[in-house]
């Protein structure tokens, strides 16, 4: 049976074929669809964790219990999960454990471009890297097997291009006859107190040596000899570009990126006249090859920033490019918050209050874009609150009143709670706005502990954010409707002026939630052209449904696209002339 699968779908399929029993993740582009697709395999218990560290800890527990497990996250998520990862490398596993890191060269939807191959070496765990969907499926299963054979977690690295490309995959049968999970007491292996950990450290070092030997004959480290003029060591999607651009070159395609098979590399290097290393981002393989004393060309010609493309390789190897025309300046089409997005009015208000907004990761990061232009920092998940605490420690009392942290419900639960705890504990007088839209919206609407549903679609306990903030010690927690601009502004002003920590929860569901009763469309609005004065006040919202109609000689007018408008009525509140009304 053949199917067109994306890399993420293929990893989900691979998990099923490998007999994975537990899968946990926090959504993050480009990794999100792995868990969303695992849900279709009823044999696997799949869940969203509040953050990546918890996801990995759940996976570790399942493995210690004797079941095969998979955890998935985007590259920056591994930073969050790094703490358990480094010790997991010591304890090893019982059931096989695959740890997927989905990296994002070119930062299509990320805040940095880190190359997580470095984590494999740093944490001392093996890493596999597939080059298409078929390999995504096969490597997932192989990773589980290596994990059990060598008593180690195995990292599986994908990149956006692999995660989100589809290619043809031949499906296989699920593994059978796996041992039933059961409790096993083995504190020498699973309790990493110094005495035990010192012993395990030695094991880890020996394991890396054994894995390196294993890599010498591992079939996924493959030599393809063609012309010996040029030899290329490559990995992942870069392999595809090499095959495309240099069809005659000999290739050493590495399927295992860490540890590297030194003997294989030496033999390959000896067989070719000129050796190149072609890899995206860091010179990860190149540095090791050069450290082995083998001359090779890599980052001298291959860029260190951004995604590779066949065109970049053509330039690097001085091959003729297809002629292209000069780019022309055209109106751009950047992403925007949806029409009726509950965040829009909040950012409009923060802008009008001239707040200094410490931002965070989510749809609301788009509040940075004009015309809302109301975000001053954005570092990582959960950073907004800590950033606000730090800033209020150093600026003048007048400036302090301007500091507002914004954070979504999902991000708050991911890593904002501890930040807020610190803010209260250390008495930082900033205001935190929790943009509660009942969903993890940015990555495509995943459930979270505030939504009341699990990944499997079951109803569950729904956390009460206001109560949670109270429990953390916030004395002033207020909930507002972000569609009510006047009220939102009044409450924000009062809380910003207060010389104490405070939380304002803006509560309205994301307009894209399809579940019955979550989001209800209002009546589409329309501009009365007779009354519209052309003042452009409504345009300051940046709602994609509001279109400016220029008019020759006279003032233009605003118009509302009735198909796009969700009837939130926020724009109507901005029109001093009451020109915006429900469409009858």
């Amino acid at each position, binding site marked *: 049976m053949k199917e067109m699968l994306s890399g993420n779908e293929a990893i989900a399929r691979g998990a099923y074929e490998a007999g994975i029993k537990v899968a946990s993740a926090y959504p993050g582009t480009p990794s999100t669809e792995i868990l969303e697709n695992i849900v279709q395999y009823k044999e696997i218990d799949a869940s969203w964790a509040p953050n990546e560290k918890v996801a990995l800890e759940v996976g570790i527990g399942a493995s210690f219990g004797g079941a095969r497990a998979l955890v998935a996250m985007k590259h920056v998520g591994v930073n969050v999960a790094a703490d358990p990862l480094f010790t997991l490398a010591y304890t090893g596993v019982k059931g096989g454990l695959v740890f997927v890191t989905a990296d994002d060269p070119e930062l299509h939807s990320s805040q940095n471009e880190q190359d997580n191959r470095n984590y494999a070496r740093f944490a001392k765990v093996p890493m596999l890297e597939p080059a298409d969907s078929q390999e995504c499926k096969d490597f997932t299963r192989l990773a589980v097997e290596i994990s059990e054979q060598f008593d180690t977690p195995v990292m599986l690295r994908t990149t956006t291009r692999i995660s989100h490309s589809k290619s043809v995959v031949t499906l296989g049968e699920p593994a059978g006859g796996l041992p039933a999970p059961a409790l096993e007491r083995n504190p020498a292996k699973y309790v990493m107190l110094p005495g035990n950990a010192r012993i395990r450290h030695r094991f880890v070092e020996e394991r890396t040596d054994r894995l390196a030997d294993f890599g010498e004959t591992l079939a996924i480290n493959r030599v393809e000899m063609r012309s010996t003029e040029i030899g290329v060591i490559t990995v992942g999607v870069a392999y595809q570009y090499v095959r*495309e651009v240099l*069809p005659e070159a000999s290739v050493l395609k590495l399927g295992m990126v860490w540890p590297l098979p030194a003997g294989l590399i030496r033999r390959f290097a000896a067989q070719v006249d000129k050796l190149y290393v072609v890899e995206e981002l860091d010179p990860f393989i190149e540095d090791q090859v050069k450290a082995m004393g083998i001359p090779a060309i890599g980052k001298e010609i291959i860029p260190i920033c951004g995604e590779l493309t066949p065109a970049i390789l053509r330039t690097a190897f001085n091959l003729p490019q297809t002629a292209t025309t000069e780019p022309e300046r055209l109106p751009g089409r950047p992403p925007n918050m949806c029409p009726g997005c509950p965040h829009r009015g909040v950012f409009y208000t923060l802008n009008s209050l001239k707040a200094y907004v410490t931002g965070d990761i989510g749809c609301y990061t788009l509040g940075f874009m004009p015309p809302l232009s109301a975000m001053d920092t954005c570092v990582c998940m959960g950073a907004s609150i800590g950033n606000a605490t730090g800033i209020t420690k150093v600026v003048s009392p007048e400036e302090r009143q301007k500091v507002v942290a914004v954070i979504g419900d999902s991000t708050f639960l991911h890593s904002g709670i501890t930040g807020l705890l610190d803010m209260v504990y250390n008495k930082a007088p900033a205001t935190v706005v929790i943009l509660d839209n009942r969903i993890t919206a940015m990555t495509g609407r995943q459930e979270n502990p505030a939504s009341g549903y699990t990944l499997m679609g079951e109803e569950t306990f729904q956390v009460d954010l206001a109560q949670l903030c109270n429990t953390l010690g916030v004395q002033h927690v207020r909930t507002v409707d972000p569609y009510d601009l006047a009220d939102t502004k009044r409450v924000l002003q009062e809380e910003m002026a207060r010389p104490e920590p405070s939380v304002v929860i803006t509560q309205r569901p994301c307009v894209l939630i399809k579940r019955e009763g979550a989001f209800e469309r209002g009546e589409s609005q329309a501009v009365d052209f007779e009354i519209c004065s052309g003042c452009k006040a409504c345009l300051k919202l940046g709602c994609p449904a509001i279109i400016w109609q220029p008019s020759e000689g006279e003032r233009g007018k605003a118009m509302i696209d009735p198909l796009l408008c969700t009837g939130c009525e926020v724009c109507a509140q901005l029109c001093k002339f009451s020109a915006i009304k429900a469409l009858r």
Partner: protein
Amino acid sequence: MTTTTVTNILLVGVGGQGTLLAAEVMSEALMAAGYDVKKSEIHGMSQRGGSVVSHVRFGQVVHSPIICEGDADIIFGFELLEAYRCLSFLKPNGTVIANDLRIPPPSVLLGKEPYPGGLAERIKASGAELILVDGLKLATEAGNPKAANTVLLGALSQRLDIDERYWQAALEKMVPAKALAVNQKAFQFGRAI
């Protein structure tokens, strides 16, 4: 070598227009017809009203999942400005199949600049063959304006050498049952262009 036997189709549109689904249907049909197929696109930010680009490549063996500038045989555009924006991807004398639709980008909405004029003429002037489709009108006639991308797929299917039954099977697989009849009709309207 293999590159010469690979056909490249670049699908472009605006987030929310169904560009990604059209690329799915196309890839399904091509795989069923026995080709090696690769499809690539970027999710995430770009889907919130931004430009959406899907790359579909098929042939006996396909390596790279992405198309480079100057290599596309066909640009398949769901919106005129987006089709024009990607023109540098087209091979000399390639084909542009475009929906005759204008969706104003933010700067146009805000009245900061006009929607560029004469795009169809500029596409033709570049030497490309332009097939302009009134997708909205034909889709409305078929029963649902949202089926415009299926009308365009019909127009494309006439220009690719694969049997119509593979397209039909792909539509049946990818389109929700209640929308199927309308989409089959829309597809036929497209094939007639």
